[in-house]
Every structure is written in structure tokens, then in C-alpha cells.
């Protein structure tokens, strides 16, 4: 008997399918030198590799948060009953953060609440004081005197540990490179730090070092303090920010996944067939792109909401309900955003269809379908690749904006947008609560900046016009 049961939400299934697809594609690419070439150019770009290093923890957190389960409840009669609440593997890891709820707002590293409360003193009198937090700094006997020293000590311990781990990783990579190239470890080490290695390991190590310097102290401090404070209902803001990552990633990846078939099929068809098919597809995307996107999204999301409310028996838990709404948002974002890529692909295919290898295929009587699949699609994949990574950060930002407007994800789902939305009230109160907004801002900025830098590296590597050396394509 298992102490839990996996609960595959729709978005989980899609995320893992996407991961499987990506792994499959990577294996396929590995065996083909012409497909591998642009990726090895990405691997040689320092900024791209540093950005990828920063992206990896985000992706890992997102994947961890996409493994949902229901815990088995303790029961007396031997029958297994599972809890209605759906938790993710990330929740399990972050249990100390999730479970340590306070009563309401508290500032980062605070030991007392942010608002005064009337409490009854032991001697029976009432007083308005800032009460102690239930969890944040609860281990301190005299918070005012000890807090500074305690935080510094814990942070230093975390930092030391992180730096040691970093050194282990760096030496491990050097040893691996040394074994691979049959050189001694010292020369490999020197080569990397003088920037002579082919893959810019120096940039990777620097980015990794910075990540460790931030993450180490946070891990050391998080079980004892609310590093980023708590929100209105006393939930840890760091936990919220970490949970928001999955929402952003899912939107960014699934929306592009929805968009891709539209853009690819219609774009290639329009460019290849020309004539009335081209006219039809052009009218379609011209019309679609003239409707304000927000309007369309708002309408679709509201309709979905009504549907869920009217058929609540189909969606047994809030998590499932929120997940369906998230998926609906991905679909509608995908449906409204394929036009740009479609236009690009049509233009490229219009150019490619006049190439002589297409005419040679015609001369052999190769079918339209096969020409599109075998000759056209592989030759526009670089555009698709560039569009995918470039659109990702835009979609993450779009989610934030839409949730802020109120037509984004379900209010019960934690996302950057909902965090910002609640900050609207927090900024207006006196004294101001700034940490929710700041946390959302910093996390989102890091994610989007890293994604954008990586996208730039990918575009530079894939765009044939930017490749100077190497002769004709």
C-alpha cells in the first residue's frame, strides 16, 4: 500500500509530455550533426549558458511542482482513504514553509506581526501590542537582542556550505573534462578560468556561484524565519513566489504548444499552396489579429468560469478547477498568438517553395503532403525555435497582466499575477506592505531576463543571417 496516490492533473500530463518530447528531440538531434550544430553554437555563448544555468533551478522547481499526489489519511478500518487536497512534490519539500502560517502580515525576518493587536495579558489587563509570530523567530528567547546575530550566523553557515558545494561542483566538472580530454585537471582548471574552454564554463560557474550565494543562506534561514515576510492570511511569501514559478512556466510552455500547430500547419500551407488557400489563411489571421487580444481572452475565460460553476460536479476539488482554468487560459493565449509566427512561416515558405530541391521533388511526383513534411517543415524549424524561446517570456508577462486584470488564472491558484493583484491593496495601506510585490517582481524579473538572454543566444545561433563564418547555408 502506498502512502499516497498520484493525481495527474491535465496540465501535469501536458508538462511531462512536453518534457518527454524535449528529451526525445534532444536524442534525435544528438545523432544529426546539422541539427546539433546550432545547439553547439548556443553552448559556446557565455551569456546564453549563464542564462541557462539560472533557468535550470526555475525549471526544476516547476517540474517538482508538476508532480501531484493525494496523501493517504490515517484510517482505523484498513480501508485507504485519500485526502481531498491535492499536493505537489514541491509542497512536500516546502512543507516547513507551507505549514508555518502566521495570523496576518509580517515583514521579512520579523519576529512580531506587522499590525497591533489587542491581547489579554496574564494579569488580566488588555493591551495593544505587536504579538510574537507563531513560527518566525520562535526559537529566540529575546528577539530584539538576539535576532541580528542569529540571522547573520545562520546566513553565514548557509553561505559557507553553499560555497563548499559550489567548489565541489566546479572541481567535479573540471575532473570530468580532464578525463574526457585526457589532460591533467590543473590545466583544465586554468583553461576554464582563462576563458579558453570551448563551452564557456567560466560563465556557467559564475552564474552558479551567484545562485548558490543567494540560495544557500535562504535555505539556512527559511525554516526559522519568513525570509520574504508573510501575506494577508499569514502565508509565507517565499512559498508563494516559488509556487508561482510553475504557473508561469506552464503558461509560457503550453500556450506556445497550443500555438505551434496552428502557426506551423497554416503558415506552411499558405506559403506552399498559394492561391485561394493562401488568401483564406491570410484573411483568417488578419481578422484574428485585428480583434483586441485582451477582449477575446476575457470573453473566453469568463465563459470557462461560468461553465465550471454550472458543472461543478465535473471538477471535484479546487485544485482541479484551478488547473482547468489554467489550461483554458493557455489555450486561449495560444489561439490568439499564433498569427505572428504564421506570417513569418508563410513568408519563409514562399521563398523556399521556389528552391530547386522542391522542384526536383515535383519532378519526381512527390506528394504535396510529403513535400511539406520532408522538405519545407525541417527548413523552417529554426524560425519556430527562435519564436518559441522569444515568445516564452512574453507569455509569462502576459499571464501576470491578465491575472492582475482579473481574467487570468483562478484566484485560488498562486501566480505572479495574483501576487501582484493582491499587492494593489497592500500598497495602499499604511504602513505599506511592499514585500509581496517586491518578491513577485524579483522572481519574475530573474525568470524573464534569463529566458530573454537565452532566447537571444538561441536566435544568434539559429538565424542563418547572423552566422558570419561558415559559407553558404
Amino acid at each position, binding site marked *: 500500500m502506498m502512502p499516497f496516490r498520484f493525481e495527474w492533473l491535465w496540465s501535469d500530463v501536458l508538462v511531462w509530455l512536453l518534457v518527454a518530447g524535449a528529451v526525445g528531440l534532444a536524442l534525435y538531434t544528438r545523432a544529426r550533426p546539422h541539427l546539433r550544430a546550432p545547439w553547439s553554437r548556443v553552448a559556446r555563448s557565455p551569456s546564453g549558458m549563464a542564462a541557462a544555468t539560472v533557468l535550470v533551478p526555475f525549471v526544476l522547481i516547476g517540474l517538482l511542482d508538476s508532480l501531484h499526489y493525494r496523501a493517504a489519511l490515517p484510517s482505523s478500518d484498513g480501508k485507504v482513504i485519500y485526502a481531498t487536497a491535492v499536493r505537489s512534490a514541491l509542497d512536500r519539500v516546502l512543507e516547513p514553509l507551507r505549514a508555518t502560517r502566521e495570523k496576518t502580515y509580517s515583514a521579512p525576518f520579523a519576529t512580531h506581526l506587522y499590525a497591533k493587536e489587542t491581547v489579554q495579558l496574564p494579569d488580566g489587563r488588555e493591551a495593544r501590542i505587536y504579538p510574537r509570530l507563531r513560527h518566525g523567530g520562535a526559537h529566540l528567547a529575546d528577539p530584539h537582542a538576539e535576532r541580528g546575530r542569529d540571522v547573520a550566523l545562520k546566513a553565514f553557515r548557509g553561505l559557507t556550505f553553499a560555497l563548499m558545494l559550489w567548489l565541489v561542483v566546479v572541481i567535479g566538472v573540471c575532473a570530468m573534462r580532464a578525463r574526457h580530454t585526457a589532460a591533467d585537471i590543473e590545466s583544465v582548471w586554468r583553461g576554464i578560468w582563462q576563458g579558453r574552454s570551448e563551452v564557456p564554463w567560466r560563465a556557467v560557474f559564475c552564474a552558479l556561484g551567484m545562485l548558490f550565494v543567494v540560495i544557500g543562506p535562504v535555505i539556512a534561514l527559511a525554516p526559522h524565519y519568513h525570509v520574504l515576510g508573510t501575506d494577508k492570511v499569514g502565508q509565507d511569501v517565499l512559498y508563494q513566489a516559488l509556487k508561482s514559478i510553475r504557473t508561469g512556466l506552464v503558461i509560457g510552455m503550453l500556450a506556445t504548444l497550443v500555438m505551434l500547430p496552428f502557426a506551423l500547419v497554416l503558415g506552411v500551407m499558405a506559403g506552399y499552396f498559394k492561391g485561394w488557400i493562401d488568401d483564406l489563411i491570410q484573411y483568417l489571421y488578419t481578422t484574428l489579429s485585428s480583434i483586441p487580444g485582451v477582449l477575446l481572452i476575457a470573453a473566453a475565460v469568463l465563459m470557462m468560469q461560468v461553465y465550471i460553476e454550472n458543472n461543478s460536479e465535473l471538477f471535484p476539488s479546487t485544485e482541479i478547477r484551478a488547473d482547468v482554468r489554467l489550461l483554458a487560459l493557455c489555450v486561449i493565449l495560444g489561439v490568439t498568438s499564433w498569427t505572428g509566427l504564421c506570417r513569418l512561416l508563410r513568408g519563409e515558405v514562399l521563398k523556399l517553395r521556389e528552391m530547386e530541391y522542391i522542384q526536383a521533388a515535383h519532378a519526381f*511526383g512527390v506528394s504535396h503532403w510529403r513535400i511539406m513534411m520532408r522538405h519545407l517543415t525541417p527548413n523552417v524549424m529554426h524560425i519556430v525555435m527562435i519564436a518559441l524561446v522569444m515568445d516564452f517570456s512574453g507569455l509569462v508577462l502576459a499571464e501576470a497582466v491578465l491575472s492582475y486584470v482579473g481574467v487570468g488564472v483562478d484566484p485560488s491558484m498562486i501566480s505572479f499575477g495574483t501576487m501582484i493583484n493582491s499587492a494593489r491593496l497592500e500598497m495602499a495601506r499604511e504602513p505599506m506592505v511592499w514585500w509581496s510585490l517586491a518578491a513577485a517582481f524579483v522572481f519574475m524579473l530573474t525568470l524573464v531576463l534569463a529566458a530573454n538572454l537565452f532566447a537571444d543566444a538561441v536566435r544568434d545561433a539559429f538565424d542563418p543571417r547572423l552566422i*558570419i*563564418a561558415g559559407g553558404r547555408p
Partner: protein
Amino acid sequence: MSAPLLRVDGLSTLIRGDGAPVRAVDGVSFEIAAGEVYALVGESGCGKSMTALSIMRLLPDAASIAGGAVELEGENLLALPEVRMRDVRGRRVAMIFQEPGLSLNPVMTVGAQIAEAVLCHGDMERAVVDAKVLELLEAVRMPDARRRMAEYPFQMSGGMKQRVMIAIALACDPDLLIADEPTTALDVTVQAQVLELLRELQRSRNMAMLLITHDLGVVAQMAQRVAVMYAGEIIESAAVGAFFSGAAHPYSRKLFESLPDRAGRGRALAAIRGAVPPLNRKFEGCRFVERCDHALPRCAGVVPQWSAVDGRHQVKCHLYEQDRPDIETAVAIDVASPLPAAAPAPGEVLLQVKGLKVHFPIHSGFLRRISGHVMAVDGVSLEIAAGRTLGLVGESGCGKTTVGKGLLRLVEPTSGEVKFGGEDFLALSRAALRGQRRHVQIIFQDPYASLNPRVRIGDALEEGMIALHAGGDPGARQARIDALLAEVGLAADVKTRYPHEFSGGQRQRIDIARALSVEPQLIVCDEPTSALDVSVQAQILNLLKRLQRDKGLAYLFISHNMSVIEYMADEVAVMYLGRVVERGAVDEVLRAPRHPYTQALLSAVPVADPGATRPVIQLAGDLPSPVKPPQGCHFHPRCSAALPRCSSEYPDEHRFSAAHTSRCHLYD
């Protein structure tokens, strides 16, 4: 002799990239006297354009000058600051490029662009500038110069754009004009006009000229001295007369021998085996040694130095360090291997084209109504016998490629008949046509565009067999692919490789193998060698000839290159503006052309013989638009022998012999 105008000494230019830097120009030295035309000849990639760009200091970002000196009247250009160098460019050294369409700004009138160059003399009044622009346009013999000043580049033909480029180059009276393949992008008749113009301007202004070209014919007509470049260095330098009467370096000799012509029809062309070595490696000996038939043992180990053949004729070759007779015998052994037996006697008619028309509709207006037609092919009739080659000649835009694609229905013909083995291709449905496709295949011009970069060679060769259900089961298909690759002279292991690993010549071989994969009886060869260097062209032409002999293939050989047609074709059809104006056996048409257009076309071909004195028939104006072809005979506005009725009725066919026919009123 007086001090040279330009002295280049030990010039080296590097191109950085992945791996070792490429030594594109490696220790090049030469001198150009004032008023002299100096030609730099070589195949693509030998560094001749990089030499010119290095002199102008206009190198791309990845390239840099690594050493040497460039002295213009004693002043080292490489040491000048960029500000002073700008004064040199244009005022003292001007340059014209190969592609006139890319050198002009499409949103400025040509007058304004020339005026910009004129203003380098300093500020002038507008009227003075205009007068000077007009004078320049008249100097380059631009027809209707005053009106042309206000026109944009898109309104002009390639030849006129090149005239504008020359006018811009002349605006500041440079001492030296660098012409980088100035006529390569132009048709022969226009090339003849531009070359004549350049020669005249050079003489009248006593301007020195550095002419960069791959065409030995152009060199023979234009230059006084010539240098041959190979793999980044000059290997032979001589006066034009001495060079053409007795080229010394084995490479130069091979270049001459690989030129196709009528005299060589019966035998294979001398091809240079192998390819130019990569320039990013270090050379221990002669760079040509791997491809040379006369290589001595020390050629591989010792770098050859200059040896004098006689006087100023110098060559970098170990053979010339010894006594002359050795070389003569060595060279005398070199006789191109003969091709056995001439083409077989004409068999039955394989393909018959009657009245083929391909009209492209022009849409205009809001509702995209059809407002006219581009009459790309306007009633062409041809016949090809089994095992024979029909050459289709004409200038660009005459519709010859459209004929080739039209009869395969790669473009949909408007009307006509294409009969092959009793079936009319144009009457078949797409599905029914598929069954016939294996009999007729096509080879394309651009070897870089004809192979899908994402498909392995083996898969590309298999595609046709799968689509047409030819070649049997997968095992048999693989065996057939191996056989095909062997037939076109490639190793079997290329199957698993991708096109980017191959050179232009190798790609063209793969292209041929692909066409052969379904065992066609007729192959349409659409300018198969025009993107290749002469030595590689010779390899491909040899291959095509051998395949024809072995398999009894028929070719429809489309080309603008007269000498290739002379070498390859049995019959010739000359096209002008969508119609065939003259056709017949190759000897009849090319030796005794009847149509004035054929005569002009043949006279314009530059011959690799500086002694040849034949009048070039200059054609007036440019090819008219195929949207509105002239009334009557299409050629009459440019014809020097036009009769009054040429402008009203299209001439009938006149038969001069069993095969030779022409459409011209002169023979009525």
C-alpha cells in the same frame, strides 16, 4: 619604364573564423603602370576579390590585412588613417562590382547617386552638378541620358545599372579603376557593350585598370598584362600575348584545355582532378602539386620561387627551373583522353513539343483582376531524338528555363502539346502524369539550392524511387544508390552525409545521380554548369557526355554559354523573347547563322585569343519586356537589317537545309 602607379608587395589577408585563419591572399605582389589594364584571373575562392578589397581597404569585418604594402604613386595606402583613405577611394581609386543591382540604392534616383559622387570635388552649384551628371551619363553612352537621370534603379536593366555604376566610378576621374567581375552578371550581348565601353573609357582617359575576372575571353579582349591566381597567390604573370600563345604553369594550361569548344566535341575535356586545397593550412610545397600531372618529387616539399620563362613572363613552378625541353615533352604527353565514337545516329523522335505557351497572368487593382500576361514562352516547338542533345540558347529572360520547366509541368503551361512516347504530358491529370515522370528528369543550375540541406544524400537519392515506385524493395534501392554514386564518381559512403559537406561540383554530381535514379530517357539540363568554375565545369560536361554514351540518354541542354552548347549539343535552338528564332544542326547554326540575332549573339562571345579580330555586332538597347513584345518580328527594334515589314508581321519559317530553319524576313 617609369615608376608604377600601383605597387602591391607581399600582400597577405587573413579571414578569421572557426579554427585556423584562412589565408585568402598570401603574399601577392604585382605592379600596374599608369594607363595599363592588368587582369587578375582565377577560379572562385582563389583570393582575387579579396586582393581588390584589400587594396581598397574595404574588407569585411572577419578579414584583416596581415602584412605587405600597397603603394599608390609611392604612398603606402595601408598606413593611411581612415580619413585620408576615404579621399583615396573614389578620387584616386574607384571600384565597380559584379552585381550592379546590389550596388545602387533603390530609393534614390540614379542622377542623385551620381551627383553624390560628383560632389566629392567639393561644393558646386546645382546646375553645374546636373551638367556634370549628364556629361557622365553621356560618357557611359546611356541612351536618353537626360530622362534617365530622374529614374530609379528598378526602372533600369542590368546593363544600364552597370553603366550607372561606371559613371559613378568615373565621377572623380580616378587614376585607377578596379573592376571586379564587371560583366559576369550580364548577358553576352550586354557584356559586349559594357566591355567595349570600358575599353574606350580606359583609352580616352588613360586610366589604369585592375580587371578581375574568371573569363579568359574577357582577359584576351581587355588586358595588356595578366596574372593567374591560385589558392591565394599569383602563380604566373605575363603580357597577354605571351600568355595566350604559351601559358607556362600547368594550372594555366589546364584552364585553357578545360574550355569547351566545337573542336573538342569528339573528346573529353581536360579536367583538373580534385579541388583547391583549403587555405587554412600551411603549405610545404607547391599549392597545385596534388592536382598537377607533371609534379616532380620536390614539388611537394619545396615552395617554388619565381622563374622567368622569357622576359617579363614569370611563373612559380619547379618545371621552369630546368631546361625548357623537359617541360615541352612533359606537356606533350598530356593529351586528353578521347571519348570513343561520336554521338549515335539520330534515333526516333523521343519528345515532341508543339506550340508550347506559358503565360503568367499579371494581377492588379483591388480585386486582383488579370490585367495582362507575361508571355514567358510564346509558342515554342521542338523535337528531341533519342540519345541526342538539343541545345537551347538565349539570353536571360528569353524563356528558355521556362520551356524546360513547362514541359515537365513544374510550371503549368497555358497551351500546347508535349508528346512523349505517344502521351501528351499537358493533357494528363496529376496522377496520370506521375506515371510518366520517371521518363523525363531535370538537373538544376544552382547546386547549392538543388539539395535539401536537411536531407541526407542517400535519402535524397531514394526519394524519387519511392515516389515513383521504381527501384524495387529497400534493399534493391540501396544497391542502386551505391551504383548511381559510383557512376557519377562519388564514394558510397556519401550516402549518410549531408549536402553542406560537399563542393559545388560534387553537389552537381549528386544532382545528376538523383535524376538518374529513376532511369529517365530524357534529362532537362537547366544551365547545369553555369554556377561552376571552368575546371569543374569540364568534369561535369565529361560526366554528362559519358552518361549519354553509356545509357543512350537524350538531353535538352539549356545554356547561355555558346561554347558549352557548341561542345555538348547536336542540334541547337536559339530563343528570343519566348520564341525560337533559329534552329538546326549545331554546325549549321553556329558556323553559318542566318538570323541577325544569332549572328549578334555569336559575335558577342569573347574569344580567348587576343589576336582574334572580328567585329562585334552591337545590339541597340535591351531585351524588350515579355509583357508587351514588339509588333511583328520581336527582334526588329534592335535589328540593324530590319525591313519595313518586320514591324508589322511575324516572319514565317524558312528552311535552309533538312534541319536548319529560321524565322526572318531577310530570306523571304
